[in-house]
């Protein structure tokens, strides 16, 4: 993995947030999907969950991306942008 943004550096995450992200991965990602994110090879669903569990740099990217989408949905920003 290449060196990335400060906000994606490994750090402790709220266990409830982690649980939420893991649940979303489990519920929303088909097993035939692989994710191209950052540098390196594409990641399987199981590998995504491992990175989130480990709270490493890739895991933080996944967590930040999920939280950002949830916030956009709940704030109405997502709907607003689509309606424009």
């Amino acid at each position: 993995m290449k060196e990335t943004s400060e906000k994606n550096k490994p750090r402790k995450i709220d266990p409830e947030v982690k649980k939420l992200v893991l649940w979303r991965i489990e519920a929303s990602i088909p097993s035939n999907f692989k994710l191209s994110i950052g540098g390196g090879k594409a990641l399987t669903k199981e590998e995504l969950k491992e990175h989130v569990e480990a709270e490493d740099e890739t895991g933080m990217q996944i967590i930040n991306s999920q939280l950002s989408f949830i916030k956009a949905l709940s704030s109405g920003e997502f709907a607003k942008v689509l309606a424009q």
Partner: protein
Amino acid sequence: MSKTILITRPCYDDPTSYLFCYAGLIIKEAEEKMFSILDLKKPRLTRENFTKMIEKNNPVMIFFNAHGTETAIYGDKIVEEEEILVEENVNHELLNSRLVYARACWSAVSLGNKACLNNGCFIGYSLPFSFWIDERWSAKPLNDNTAKLFLEPSNLIISSLLKGNTAEESVIKSNEMSKKNILKLLKEKEEPGAVASMSLLWSNMQCLQISGNKGMKAE
């Protein structure tokens, strides 16, 4: 005299093989529009060749397809190690005065700000450019309808520039296509992975950035 476009196309893992194929579509399109193409791929995709080609051919536009960081864009794997093609404060001047689209993660965070100096323009991403791959189609990237949701809006940036639109207009068109894809997925909510795809399309739209001369055209 035809205008020159330099395209970098590494191909050594699933993500780069998808970008390689989609950039191939752009090459066909550009040739039909009488652009002269410098297609940098294995074994010629090295930093040395990249530098020489820019100095010799003075391309109006550079289209990177690669892995990236906040300060660098990579090329091919040379002896198992990805080689940096362009790096902030080392050789970013190569990009100055040009129209650049970096389909590479994070490069808009810092490198883009230096790359667009001297009235150039840099289009890139402030977070990872991400896409889902349906592994049942990974041997035939252009037949993968899941990856298409992400790579077509991205390709549209260059297609639009080839048609003479400005950098800003091209970014707007790309985001419009991403929005259409999200709306399509909303209508197909039973489609496996629809929510996961919407989430990534949203992320790519939010982190697509344009720096420098937004009115710049590929001319």
